[in-house]
C-alpha cells in the first residue's frame, strides 16, 4: 500500500468516526500514528485552532487539560488507586454531562517488559479504567478500549520517573464524534 493510500484510508477512518451512526467505532480509533497520544499534558501540535481565553467546558480540550485524561498504575498492576478513582470519577462526570461524545480508553505500559506481555497488560489497564467509568454511569456503548503496550511512551527516559508516567490509561475523546 502506498503512503497516499494509507493517508486516504486514515482520513476515511476519521470521517467514519465523525458520523453518528451506531458503527461509529467501526473504523475509527486513534489512527495509525495516534495523534492524540503525543498530548503530553497539553496539545501536541497547537495547530488545532486553540486560541487564548477560557476553554469551552464542553470541549475535548477542556476534558484533557482541565478534567484530566489519564490515570497511572503501579508496576504490572491494573488496579486503580484513590487518585485514579478520583480522576476517573471526574472523567465520568464530564462524559455524562457531554453525552454527544464517545471515548477511547488507551492502556499503556512502560518499557520494562516484553512487547506482547505489555500489550496484554495495556488491555487490562484500559479495561480497568473503562469499567470504572461504566460503574460511574457512563454508557458502555460510548467507550472502547485499545492497548498500545509499550509502543507509545509519553516520556522517553529509561528511569522510574518516566516509567511511572508511561504506565497509564488515557481517555481520548473521539475526535468529532459529537452526536448532533
Amino acid at each position, binding site marked *: *500500500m*502506498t*503512503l497516499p493510500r*494509507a*493517508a486516504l*484510508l*486514515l482520513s476515511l*477512518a476519521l470521517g467514519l468516526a465523525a458520523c453518528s451512526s451506531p458503527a461509529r467505532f467501526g*473504523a*475509527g*480509533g*486513534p*489512527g*495509525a*500514528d*495516534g495523534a492524540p*497520544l*503525543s498530548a503530553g499534558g497539553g496539545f501536541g501540535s497547537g495547530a488545532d485552532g486553540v486560541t487564548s481565553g477560557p476553554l469551552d467546558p464542553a470541549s475535548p480540550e477542556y476534558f484533557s487539560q482541565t478534567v484530566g485524561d489519564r490515570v497511572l498504575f503501579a508496576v*504490572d498492576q*491494573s488496579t486503580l488507586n484513590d487518585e485514579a478513582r478520583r480522576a476517573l470519577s471526574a472523567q465520568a462526570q464530564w462524559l455524562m454531562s457531554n453525552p454527544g461524545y464517545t471515548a*477511547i480508553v488507551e492502556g499503556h505500559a512502560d*518499557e*520494562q*517488559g*516484553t*512487547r*506482547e*506481555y505489555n*500489550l*496484554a*497488560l495495556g*488491555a*487490562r*489497564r*484500559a*479495561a*480497568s479504567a*473503562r*469499567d470504572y467509568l461504566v460503574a460511574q454511569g457512563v454508557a458502555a456503548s460510548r467507550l472502547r*478500549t*485499545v*492497548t498500545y503496550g509499550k*509502543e*507509545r*511512551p*509519553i*516520556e*522517553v*527516559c*529509561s528511569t522510574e520517573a518516566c516509567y511511572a508516567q508511561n504506565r497509564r490509561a488515557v481517555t481520548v475523546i473521539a475526535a468529532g464524534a459529537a452526536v448532533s
Partner: protein
Amino acid sequence: MTLLRFLIAAILATAAFAQVTAPARAQDGPLRIEITEGVIEPLPFALPTFIAETPEAQSWAQRITDVVAADLTGTGLFRRIPSDAFVTQVTEFTPSVTYANWKAINAQALITGAVSVTGGQINVKFRLFDVFSEAPLGEGLQFGGTEQSWRRLAHKVSDAVYSRITGETGYFDSRVVFVSEQGPKNARQKRLAVMDYDGANVQYLTDSGSLVLAPRFSPTGDRVLYTSYETGFPQIYELNVGSVSRTQLPVPAESMTFAPRYAPDGRTIVFSAAINGNTDIYTLVPGAAPRQLTNAPSIETAPSYSPDGSQIVFESDRSGSPQLYVMPAGGGEPRRISFGEGRYGTPVWSPRGDLIAFTKQNAGRFHIGVMRTDGSEERLLTASFLDEGPTWAPNGRVIMFTRESAGAGGQPGLFSVDVSGRNLKQVPTPNAASDPAWSPLLP
C-alpha cells in the same frame, strides 16, 4: 599421518546437552567439526577466489567467494587463511589438488569453486577437500540461478560446506522478517521488512502508516503473520510475501488480537485475544470459528508450537508473575516449566524440538536464555538493558533477537548469538530494527 579432528564447542556448553549431538569420535577420522562441549578452536580453511570461467563472471566470482567466506567465518566455527599465505594459487577448477601445498599452511579444509555466467544465468560449482585426509569431502556440487539470486547461490555453497563439516543442516540460505523502525521513541514508525539472514537485500512489506508488530514466517516461508494497528486497534493479519497482499484474519468479536504464530501444519494459527481486558490464547483454522484454548483471568500470550505440533509453550502470569507453561496443542491443563528467579516471556520452541528459547527479566536486566522443554538446565546467553524476542535459525543452532539501548535516544537493533552463548554480534540493518523472525531454510 594424524587426521586432526576438531572438537568445537560452539553450540552446546554443558555436558547435559551432549546427547543431542553426535557422539564423540575417535582421534582419527574424516574432517569433522563436532558440535559438542570443549574449547573453541575455529577450523582454518583456505578459500581461493572462485575461478571465473567466462569473462563476465569475474566480478561475480569475487562477490560470491566473499559471501561464502563471510558466511563461514561469521559462524565463529571457521577461520579463513589469508590468500597471501598460500604457497600455490588455484587457477583451474580440478577434481584433484596438491594436498601438501595446503598442509603447509595448516589449512584443514580447502574450498575451490568456479563461476560462469551465460545469458544472465549464473552457475556456481564448488568442491570441498579434507586436506589432512587427502580426500574430497563429498562430491562436487553446482547451483544455478539468475544474477539477482547470486547471494543465494553463495549461501547454498556455504550451507553445503557447513553441513559436510558439522553434520548439521546449514542456515545461510534463509531470510528474516522483522520490523524496521524510524523516528523518535514516543512516535516510532514501524514497517515490516524482510532481509537475508545476514542483513542483505532488505525489502519492505508495509508502509509506515500503521504500527506493526512481531511478524512470523509460515513454515514454508511464503506468508507472514503479524499484528497491525491499521484499524486503530491491534488486529492480526496474514501477508503473502510474494504478492505483498494482506488479509485481516477472522477473530473473536470485541477483541484485540496479537501474537499470532503458525502451527507446523502451516494452516492453523495460534494467537492472543484480549476481550474485556483479559487476554487468552485462541486457535484459528481456515473456515472455522476461532477456538479458545485457555480460559483464565490471568494474561496468557506469546504462544509457540512444538515442531511436532503436539504442544504449545506460552507465557502466563497466573502465578502472579509472567512464567512459562506448556499445554497440549488442543488446550488442557498447562504445566509450568520456568522456576528460576525473575520473569519469563516470549518462549519459542527450537526447530530441533530440544530447547525452548525465552526472554528473562531479572534484577533490572534482560536476558535471552534457553532451557530444556521440561524447564531444566536453564542457561542465559545474553544480558543487557533490554534483550527480547528470540527466534531460532532453521537448524536450531543460532538465535536472533532484539536488543534495545536505554534512554531517550534508545534504539533497537538485531543481534545473533550461538545457542552456546558465543559469537554474539549485531546483524546490520539500514535503520533501527526489532522483532526478527527467521524463515525456514529456503528450497
